[in-house]
């Protein structure tokens, strides 16, 4: 391992950082003594189940709960009106209001199959489910919007929106110069990628136990990614600042992005517990998890790339759309896909259009590497391009990846890059894996009618994010050496399997100079440990590790100061090793840490002047805003051309995750991500029929990878320390990002003799047979031109203002001079109202825009009804706003380009 020198601090050598120590969590988990949310039972606790919509979209005509209420053992049946007695506003992961109204239970409409309508409280879950089945609902069913294609043309999912675009960024029309660069390139490809919908599928489903402990206290046991983040979210969502909210989640059975924030059912249970005054438990069953828990990934991208004659990247354009479902946890257009698409590559020109779409399906949530589509699209496109250009795919990457020597540099999207190493990871991978030998084996196999393939991919990943978004904070380590000499750490980190009680203890033991066995890490309780967004964005090793180092160093200094005072030595001569305090050159003066600790707590008279009694220290570490992890992976497969089955032969990970605290934990994170990647490419496919009915509602239909589907992974550690304290880089998500293109590339390489394999995940045997046999076996149009037919381009409703622009300009166009009331619809946030004043002098234009934020003056041009002007703004970032409007009588309309944020539509009327 590549543990860096931490400087001569007088602490024993790095004995635990970098070691494959046994995990502290494992004895309780192996013996069935873990504490998951369903393991909690409180006195007087009742159970919750939900009656849910069986249709994807419609109005509720009537709800009859009589039979449900009359069932013995039922305490209450709550509808939307009942829960509305408690103020509640669901918030996104970023603690922002949701863009469309979201109620906990249906408010007159249902928007997806599984939408909760009634909450039943009963003596047991069995009875609650019996009662749920007795709730009678009459609907006026409507045609649902299910797919992205439906969303483009279908009626708006939400009565409050004009169209189904939940967010849009980038340029609706490709920039003319970029288009020219692409069309003029020596080699051009247009690459389509379709990603299916994924269920995060943590083995522990969602669940909560909520207990109102009097009017001023609320205790929640909830399976989550950070108890302190849930406490913050609940306090804000419920508007209960005076209520002490304690959130406990000792053990969490996986999350993978699903449990970032509570959603309808968890929050409804909490509200019901507040209203009903008894502790309530709701544990999602697997059917609910597959039909009502938020999901991820469903997206499509068209990626255009232009290369010069040598295969060097010239220009690229990406058009991305994601199916956000009805109630996404933040209706975003996933601009991170665009941000990181070319992050590791040298490319001079890039543009994009990125959109999220509402549909009558389950809402979008995070899933390990939420922007992973960028690596899938780019790396599979590069292999396709390499085949078309006759360049080796490895060589194509060597010509275009940004190397360490070329840094510092900025990506085409402006990412500052100082120490990314995908090119170096690739070289280390190739030093380990003999490509030439594989190509010989592949050639021999093909002669025998066997189809082997090699896939290689490279990427970078932002990890350890802090400070750039309000919710992404640093991490807090609070340490104390107890009077017993044992070390207790309260960490703001939280494990859903990450093993932070182990890795943080390793760091602390290492830096303090005590035995690993003598360090206990407590987390999983908002009453202990400071605020943290938890396990989100591969951040805990980087930031929590840094906090543990800094707090340990503070505490070690304190020990040394006290020991020096007691032993009549100078602090520089004191070292701490294995829980013993030594004075250099005086072995007879060694003392146990315990003996010093007893004095620190119990004998204040013996402490140095001004010394705070006890041995305690804390530090909140905020790292650089972003720490990049890099990797290159290779995998080899054999595709059975009779059955279409894929067998993975080898898989090698060459990754740079900086300082490794525990190789077993790091490899476990990568392997877990790769297994999910293999599921994504070959097996998993959450599917709806045309009426929006989910058809993969058990694990017999939604196929998760089994042990027999996953090969033994080989690891090449190509680590270089990062610039964060301790040198760690995040590693939680990478396998799930780099895994899919690696495997897809291996399959397409194997089947290259049959033609290109459309990247339409999952690559089921039927889809591969369609390519192998040159006919549509899968029924998806795979391998045929039809599968790449462009979807309808424009949104019907979006055309209304454009139509106004396109309408024939009256011959005698009225003057623009005067005042106008204007509405701008930006890509994010609510419409903005402003007034405009225009004055013309010939074709010269001057004027100002005025809104509550202030007045901004401009000059521009006016010609034949066309109004053009520019404004420079500083917030939210430095951009130039380019207005392009058309006047028609007393109506003005058009758009404003907002730099890389895309464009906004404007409409307005003359103020008479």
């Amino acid at each position, binding site marked *: 391992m590549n543990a860096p020198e931490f400087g001569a601090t007088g602490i024993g050598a790095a004995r635990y950082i970098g070691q*494959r120590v*046994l*995990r502290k*969590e*494992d*004895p*309780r*988990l*192996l*013996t*069935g*003594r*873990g*504490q*998951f949310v*369903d*393991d909690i039972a409180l006195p007087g606790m009742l159970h919750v189940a939900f009656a849910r919509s069986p249709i994807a979209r419609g109005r509720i005509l009537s709800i009859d709960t009589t039979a449900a209420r009359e069932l013995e053992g039922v305490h209450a049946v709550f509808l939307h009106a009942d829960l509305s007695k408690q103020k509640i506003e669901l918030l996104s992961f970023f603690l922002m209001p949701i863009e469309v109204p979201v109620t906990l239970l249906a408010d007159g409409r249902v928007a997806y199959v599984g939408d909760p309508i009634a909450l039943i409280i009963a003596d047991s879950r*069995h009875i609650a489910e019996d009662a749920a089945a007795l709730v009678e609902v009459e609907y006026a069913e409507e045609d649902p919007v299910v797919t992205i294609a439906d969303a483009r043309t279908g009626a708006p999912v939400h009565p409050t929106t004009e169209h189904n675009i939940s967010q849009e960024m980038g340029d609706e029309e490709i920039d003319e110069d970029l288009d020219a660069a692409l069309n003029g390139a020596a080699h051009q490809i247009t690459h389509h990628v379709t990603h299916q919908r994924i269920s995060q*599928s*943590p*083995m*522990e489903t969602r669940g909560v136990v909520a207990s109102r402990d009097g009017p001023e206290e609320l205790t929640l046991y909830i399976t989550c990614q950070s108890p302190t983040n849930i406490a913050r979210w609940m306090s804000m969502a419920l508007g209960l600042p005076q209520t002490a909210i304690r959130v406990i989640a000792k*053990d*969490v*059975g*996986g999350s*993978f992005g699903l449990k970032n924030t509570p959603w309808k059912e968890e929050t409804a249970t909490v509200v019901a517990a507040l209203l009903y005054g008894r502790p309530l438990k709701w544990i999602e*069953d*697997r059917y609910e998890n597959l039909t009502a828990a938020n999901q991820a990934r469903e997206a499509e991208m068209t990626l255009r790339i232009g290369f010069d004659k040598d295969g060097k990247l010239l220009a690229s354009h990406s058009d991305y759309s994601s199916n956000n479902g009805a109630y996404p946890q933040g209706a975003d257009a996933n601009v991170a896909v665009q941000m990181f698409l070319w992050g590791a590559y040298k490319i001079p020109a890039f543009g994009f259009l990125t959109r999220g779409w509402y549909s009558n399906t389950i809402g979008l949530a995070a899933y390990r590497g939420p922007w992973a589509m960028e690596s899938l699209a780019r790396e599979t496109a590069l292999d396709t391009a390499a085949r078309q250009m006759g360049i080796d795919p490895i060589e194509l990457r060597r010509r275009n990846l940004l190397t360490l020597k070329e840094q510092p540099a900025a990506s085409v999207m402006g990412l500052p890059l100082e120490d990314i190493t995908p090119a170096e990871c690739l070289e280390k991978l190739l030093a380990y894996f003999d490509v030439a030998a594989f190509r010989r084996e592949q050639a021999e196999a093909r002669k025998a009618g066997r189809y082997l393939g090699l896939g290689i991919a490279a990427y970078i990943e932002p990890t350890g994010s802090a400070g750039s978004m309000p919710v992404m904070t640093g991490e807090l380590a609070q340490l104390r050496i107890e009077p017993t000499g044992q070390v207790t750490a309260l960490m703001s980190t939280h*494990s*859903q*399997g*990450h*093993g932070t009680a182990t890795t943080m203890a390793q760091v602390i033991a290492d830096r303090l100079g005590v035995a690993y066995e003598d360090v206990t890490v407590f987390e999983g309780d908002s009453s202990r440990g400071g605020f943290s967004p938890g396990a989100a964005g591969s951040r805990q090793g980087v930031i929590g590790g840094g906090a543990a180092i800094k707090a340990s160093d503070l505490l070690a200094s304190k020990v040394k100061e006290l020991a020096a005072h007691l032993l009549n030595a100078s602090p520089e001569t004191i070292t701490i090793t294995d829980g013993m305090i030594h004075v250099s050159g005086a072995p007879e003066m060694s003392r146990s840490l315990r003996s010093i600790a007893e004095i620190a707590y119990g004998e204040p008279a013996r402490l140095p002047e001004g010394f705070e009694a006890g041995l305690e220290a804390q530090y909140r570490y905020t790292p650089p805003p972003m720490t990049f992890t890099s990797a290159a992976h290779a995998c080899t497969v054999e595709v059975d051309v009779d059955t279409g089955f894929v067998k993975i032969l080898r898989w090698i990970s060459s990754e740079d995750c900086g300082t490794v605290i525990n190789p*077993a*934990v790091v*490899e*476990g994170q990568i*392997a*877990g*991500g*790769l*297994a*999910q990647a293999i599921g994504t490419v070959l097996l998993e496919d959450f599917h709806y029929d045309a009426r929006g009915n989910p058809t993969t509602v*058990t*694990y*017999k239909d939604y196929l*998760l990878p*089994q*042990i*027999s589907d*996953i090969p*033994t*992974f080989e690891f090449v550690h190509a680590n270089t320390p990062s610039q964060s304290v301790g040198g760690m880089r995040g590693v939680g998500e990478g*396998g799930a990002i780099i895994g899919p293109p690696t495997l897809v590339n291996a399959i397409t390489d194997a089947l290259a003799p049959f033609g290109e394999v459309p990247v339409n995940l999952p690559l089921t045997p039927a889809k591969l047979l369609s390519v192998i046999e040159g006919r549509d076996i899968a029924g998806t149009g795979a391998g045929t031109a039809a599968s790449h037919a462009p979807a309808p381009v424009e949104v019907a409703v979006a055309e209304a203002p454009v139509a106004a622009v396109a309408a024939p300009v009256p011959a005698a166009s009225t003057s623009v001079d005067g005042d106008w009331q204007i509405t701008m619809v930006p890509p994010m946030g609510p419409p903005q109202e402003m007034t405009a004043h225009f004055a013309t002098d010939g074709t010269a234009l001057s004027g100002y825009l005025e809104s509550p934020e202030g007045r901004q003056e401009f000059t521009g041009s006016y010609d034949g009804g066309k109004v053009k002007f520019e404004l420079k703004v500083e917030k939210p970032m430095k951009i130039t706003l380019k207005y392009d409007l058309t006047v028609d009588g007393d109506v003005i309309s058009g758009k404003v380009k907002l730099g890389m944020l895309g464009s906004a539509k404007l409409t307005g009327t003359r103020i008479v």
Partner: protein
Amino acid sequence: MSEHQISVTVNGRPLHGQVESRVSLGDFLRIDGGYTGVHLGCEHGVCGACTVIVDGKAVRSCLMLAVQADGSDVTTAEGLAEPDGTLHPVQQTMREEHALQCGFCTPGVVMTLAALTAGDARPTEEALIGALSGHICRCTGYQGIRRAAKRLAADAGARAGEVA
């Protein structure tokens, strides 16, 4: 719904209960017995997290009714380690091989391996992997579980002997 008086032995101790016929063994062990190491991951027999040993055989406790277990001898993950806390060889091997992360599927994996390697039984690695294909682990990518199975298998050679 008919109710039945049943008695089972769980980890060597008696457990009596009055249960509806529809109650699964898994729910009975968790709710009536407090054996919360029995984890219900899917309740339709795919994930394997709820596996317990009933009369010597690994059983999915979500697919067996409590009334079917009347009179049976049941072992759960809580009952495998020695009273002094010494881990069962399967548990120890899984710990050493980092065969778990979140630990939710773990009790089921432990029980299947314990059932198949009980006493002198030493299945082949292939047989153990075959059995483990009935367990879903979403965290580990099965790397440590596979290593543990290799060590516990008949064909592991001297290393398996050390562990057992």
